[in-house]
């Protein structure tokens, strides 16, 4: 690892209906805490976290072993191609997470926050069927506004939040969720609880990994082409890595 290597900045967007726990998840992940006292997000909140990613585990299956959602993450055949410039062990990056407002009225804001994203997290509340049904809506909304280069391969992650509640309150079954995730293109799915800190770190690890992958993919596509006006640092091209 040469000292000259710059940090990756990975931009992540969290979407989902109002009240599903987007802010709580992000706070749990970034600050390791949970509170009942978050105000409703207006526009979007911004948080960052430094992450260290083990490159060799770009295939996330191993780190995912204790994930009770039991999903496949085999869709990373494209990832191995990009390991050449990160082959020297772990890699640090900064996650810039935009936690958006859930109310529909704020969707006109989308473009200001979605652009340049490396990964999109879709959150629903396992006690709220409507929020689950809206996962697809949110995904389409994102693809519509984010202007991503290849919508088919753009990484999403689905989080079913609030699994700490009584079984009786859950209205979205794991089965339904898995079907949906599969139907949308084998999107990684995690059942989380920001309150009880279940699966949050694991989920965000996957999110970071997907984002890094996407970031490098974009990087290769636009290599030496032009400087992106968005806040992605395109500094991992071959020229900048002489180690």
């Amino acid at each position: 690892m040469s000292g000259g290597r710059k940090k990756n900045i990975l931009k992540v967007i969290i979407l989902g209906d109002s009240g599903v726990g987007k802010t709580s998840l992000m706070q749990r992940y970034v600050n390791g805490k949970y509170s009942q006292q978050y105000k409703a997000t207006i526009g979007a909140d911004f948080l960052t976290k430094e992450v260290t990613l083990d490159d060799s585990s770009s295939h996330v299956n191993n780190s995912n072993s204790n994930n009770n959602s039991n999903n496949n993450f085999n869709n990373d055949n494209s990832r191995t191609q990009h390991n050449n410039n990160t082959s020297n062990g772990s890699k640090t990056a900064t996650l810039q997470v935009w936690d958006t407002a859930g109310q529909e009225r704020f969707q006109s804001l989308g473009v200001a926050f979605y652009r340049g994203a490396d990964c999109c997290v879709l959150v629903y509340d396992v006690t709220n069927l409507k929020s689950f049904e809206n996962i697809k809506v949110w995904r389409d909304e994102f693809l519509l506004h984010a202007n991503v280069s290849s919508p088919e391969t753009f990484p999403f992650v689905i989080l079913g939040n609030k699994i700490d509640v009584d079984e009786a309150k859950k209205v979205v079954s794991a089965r339904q969720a898995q079907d949906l995730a599969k139907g949308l293109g084998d999107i990684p799915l995690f059942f989380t609880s920001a309150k009880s800190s279940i699966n949050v770190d694991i989920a965000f690890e996957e999110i970071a990994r997907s984002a890094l992958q996407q970031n490098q993919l974009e990087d290769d596509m636009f290599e030496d082409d032009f400087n992106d006006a968005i806040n992605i640092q395109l500094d991992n091209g071959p020229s900048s890595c002489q180690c």
Partner: protein
Amino acid sequence: MGLKKSSSSRDINQKTSSPSLFSSLMKSWSHSGHSPTRSNSKAYSSSTTDNNNLGYASDTSSNDGTANQLTRKNSSRSGSNSFTNVNDIYRMTKPIMPTNHHHSNNHSSSSSILLNNNNTNTGNINSSTIKKSHHKFSDSNEDWSAVVDDYNMPPSMDFFTDYLSKNSNTNMMLGPSPVLSKKNSGHNNNNNNYTSGSSSSSNNSNNKNSGTITYPKLTEHNYHLELENERELQELNSKLTRINKFDQILSSSSIISLAELKKLSWNGIPMGHRPLVWKLLIGYLPANKKRHEILIQRKRKEYKTGIYHIFSPQHTRDQPTWHQIEIDIPRTNPHIKLYQFPSVQKSLQKILYFWAIRHPASGYVQGINDLVTPFFQIFLTSYLPEHQKAKVCDIDPETYLTEENFAEVEADSFWCLSKFLDTIIDNYIHGQPGIMKQVSNLESLCKRIDGQLYKHLKKENVEFVQFAFRWMNCLLMREVPIDIVIRMWDTYLSETSSDDNDGGVDSAGARKGSGSSNMKMMMNNNNTLSDGTVTPNGVAQNANDLINIPTHANESVNNNNNTNNNSGSNKRKTSLSEFHVFVCAAFLETWSNSLLDMDFQGIITFLQNVPTANWGEKDIEILLSEAYMWQTLYKDATSHWL
């Protein structure tokens, strides 16, 4: 009030100084429950005589931290040396000294009683008198009589002890209650309510020749406290004056002069007057006092009927709206106790749902839950006794409100919220065009005001919408504490209230001097340009609104018509959206230096958590004054605004 000031910077001082005085006074009352200055009593008692001269200096520095430091630096010196210092300090501080000019002698004496209160624990201090210190000053070949007149001289210590022995319950005379003074229309009478001014002066003269002056040792710490003391006295005086001015306006005749009221309210409204004044400024209550009772009963009944209707079985609940409000209510001001009480949550839910149902063009939008809280909270205070008003956030209203009272607070909050939102409804309709325009206006304003910051933000790829969206959507309520928001709204409501048919021109002219005519032109221009389109500036209300003809369910679509109507008139009208952009610009500018050192991540993180937790009213008042100044300076710029 006070001296005529011409330059804009002085104007700012004038604006920023006095209002804050009142509320911090109120705060100190509420915190101590006794004397606002009692905790400082020791410091004062040990230092009064030693530093007569410095005491004057501290007077002049009442509004300025720098001067304060200067005087403190000098406080270690003693005797004649310090005279020159004092003179220097006096010269230095004079230009920034804001509101002392209108202190009458009566006020001085009421302040002496306060001092008195501070010296509860001291009996053995040698005294000096006003006269004596006056002589001291004349030694220095300066005309200090003006100083004595202008700045309240501490009275003799003997008087304090005398007085205290006669009046054991000193708290009584502090009576924070503006209600006390309400009975008097002339504001020079007010000291009778609080103190006995005549006894104070006679005591002073009795003590004129008493004792020799000794100089107790003064620590820097104590000296600092003394300065605080002096400042608090002045603030108190200024607040009393303001309270009386409000009393005068509100009680002088059957028709309340809204222009006067606006002018005065711009600088802050005393807590006791706020519920009524807000209702007047926003146009919920008419200027004609005789109609108040009838109208308010009618509006409250209308609200009650409406509520009954939408919660009757005939009404199909709008589930998505209801659900959205339901999940937002517990998230409304979650750190304030008041908003956790079930009774309050129930009321807010009703108000917001009713509003949403009546305004289908926008419906409920997150952030409106924030905007209702200042009204609710302020209207609650009218049901609290004077000494508890400041604690409104800690007391469950169920303990002091009847069901009927609750309905009244709800109704008043609802109607005022409606009035308020009418002026900014473009912020909440589909696509939120009002906010988008404001954000882009903020951007162009920033470019003009602070090109360096603007360039830096651009360089770091910061988009204004990324941080300013919330500023517009919640009117900065998320960025500053609630008591600061409330103070801010005093100005907002008086800056933009609808009194066009009662002399809006007068009020603009009176407060703004020569600038107003230009601004009027500008606004006309603006309205003409926007003729026929929906504009964020289209906040004019129909003349009817002032006398408060009951509003109807189509309020939300009136905007366009009002704009058209207004374009033909000659009245100046500042829209809330417009002024708010200037306030946001001032807010952004406040952090300019810090932001210039930050990268994208730092900037966004900072602007999402702006460090305002310790802001006092002075901070927001500086901001408002700056905003006002820029609004005047950049008026031409705004005529090009969308």
